[in-house]
C-alpha cells in the first residue's frame, strides 16, 4: 500500500519517548518524518509518511493512540484561501514540496495539497495571510 501522510500530536509526557523506534521495531512500519517540532511547553507535532502491512499498520496506530497521541490525516491541513490570495507568487519559491507553484503563462498561484508537507513556510511568508492552517 502507498504511504499515508499523517499528523501526530503528543503531550509533554510522551514527547521524549522513542516512539518511532517502536513503530519500526515492533510493527515493521516504514517511517518518513517530514516535519517534527517540539514547542517550549514540550508538546510535540510530527508530520510523517507511514507505510506497512495493514494489520501491523493498524496496531502501530493503536500503539500511538494508547500513549495519548492524536493522529489526523495530513490532507486539508493547509488551505489556500482564494479570496485572500493576490497570486503574487511570493510563496512559490519557498515551498519545499512544490505544492505551491506558478501556473504559466497565466502567472497565477496553484496549490496541490497532495504534495504539501505542512512545513508552514507559506503560512508565515504570505503577505496576505492567504495560506491557512486548519487543525
Amino acid at each position, binding site marked *: 500500500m502507498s504511504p499515508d501522510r499523517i499528523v501526530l500530536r503528543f503531550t509533554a509526557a510522551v514527547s521524549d519517548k522513542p516512539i518511532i523506534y517502536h513503530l519500526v521495531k515492533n510493527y515493521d512500519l516504514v517511517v518518513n518524518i517530514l516535519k517534527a517540532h517540539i514547542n517550549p511547553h514540550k508538546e510535540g507535532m510530527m508530520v510523517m509518511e507511514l507505510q506497512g502491512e495493514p494489520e501491523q499498520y493498524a496496531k502501530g496506530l493503536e500503539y500511538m493512540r494508547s500513549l495519548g497521541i492524536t493522529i489526523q490525516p495530513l490532507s486539508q491541513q493547509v488551505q489556500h484561501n482564494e479570496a485572500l490570495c*493576490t*497570486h*503574487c*507568487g*511570493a*510563496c*512559490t*519559491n*519557498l515551498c519545499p514540496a512544490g505544492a505551491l507553484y*506558478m501556473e*504559466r*503563462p*497565466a*502567472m*497565477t498561484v496553484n496549490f496541490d495539497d497532495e504534495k504539501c508537507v505542512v512545513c508552514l*513556510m507559506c503560512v*508565515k*511568508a504570505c*503577505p*496576505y*495571510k492567504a495560506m491557512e492552517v486548519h487543525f
Partner: protein
Amino acid sequence: MAVEKSIDEINAKIKSGKVVVMTAEEVIPLVKEKGVRRAAAEVDVVTTGTFGIMCSSGAYFNFGHTKPRMRMHKVWLNDVAAYAGIAAVDAFIGAAEVPDNDPLNSVHPGEFRYGGGHVIHDLVARKPVRLRATSYGTDCYPRREINTTITIDDLNQAVLFNPRNAYQNYNVAVNLSDKTIYTYLGVLKPHLANANYSTAGQLSPLLKDPYFRTIGIGTKIFLGGGIGYVAWQGTQHCPSMTTLPDGGKLPEGGTLAVIGDLKQMRPEWLIGASLLGYGASLTVGLGVPIPVLNEEVMYWASLSDEELYAPVIDYGIAYPAGNPEPLGYVSYAQLKSGSITIEGKEIPTAPVASYSRAQQIARILKRWIQQEGFLLSKPVELLPSIGEAPALKTLQEK
C-alpha cells in the same frame, strides 16, 4: 507621414465612441506585425497596470470636530499611530507604521501582522476602525482624550496620498550570504538559492513611458480601484536608461507620487501586506493610460518582456552595506519563465508582485476608457525626464 495626435483629439474619439484602446500586452504583437508607425496610427491609448507592495503609501483624514473641541496631538487608528502634527483633527497614516506594542523583530523574523496598510484596507472595506486620540488641551481646544469608532463614511475627507509608487523597475533580489534573509522582496535563501522580483515588466506603467513624454502632474490614473491622479514626481525620482550589450533596455529610477479620494477606492485593490521579518506595507493597484501621441510613444509602450531588463542584486551582503553592484541583468521574459542563470548557477525565480492582477488593471482601465467615458487628462507639467532630475544623494553624516 509621421503620426501626431493630441490628447484633445483622443478625448474627442473617446466621447464619440471611436477610440481604440489596447493594453500594453496587446500592442506588443500588433507593433511586431504592423510596425510602430501603423500601430501608432491605429491605437489611441495604451493601458498599463501594476499590483505590488508599495511602501511610501499612506492616507490622510479629517475626522471632524468633537464637542467640546480637541486639538488631536497623538492619534491611533486600530492602535497604529497616525501623524497628527498637521492640524486639529487631521492625521496622516503611513502604510509601514506598526502598532506601538508590536514585537517587531524581537523574535526574528517578526510577523508584522497588522500595520498602517491594513488600517487603510479596513477603512476602504468599510470596516469600523477604532480612533483614539490624546491632547494637552488648549483654551480653544480643551478636550484631552477621545476613544471612539469610525468608518470611512464618517470622515469629512479620506485621501490616499502615496509619495512614492509605481517604481519604474526593481531589483531582482538574491542572497549570496550564508543565512536565510527576510527582505522587502520576500524571503531569500542562502547561496543564490532563489531570486525574487517585483515589477509587472511589459505591463508596468513607467517601463512603458520611460522618457515621461506623456505622464505628468495631473495625469488621471487607476488608483486602488478608483480614480486617482499623478500629484508630483515620486520621492527618489531619477529616471535613467541603459542599453545593455545585447540590446536589452534597462529603464530605471522613475517614480510617481499619486493621490486620490480613498472613499471611492476598492478593498481588492488596496490590501495590507505583512512582510516577514521586514514590516507592514500596502499593496496598491495602479494603472496609467498612455496616450499614443506619436510613434516614439508607441515604440516605448510596445517594448516586451524580452526587451526589458532588470538588475540582479545581492541582498545578503552588498545591498545592506550600501554597495549594490549588479551581479548581472536579466530580462522579464527570463524572470517569468521561472528560472535565471546567475554566476553560472540556475536559480528559480518568483514574483512578489501579481502579474495577473496587473493584467486585470490594464483591462479595467481599457474598459473605463472605451465604455465608461474615462477621459485622459492633459498634464499640467510633465515630470523630469531622463537627465533632467538631479542625481540621488546619500545621507552624509556630520
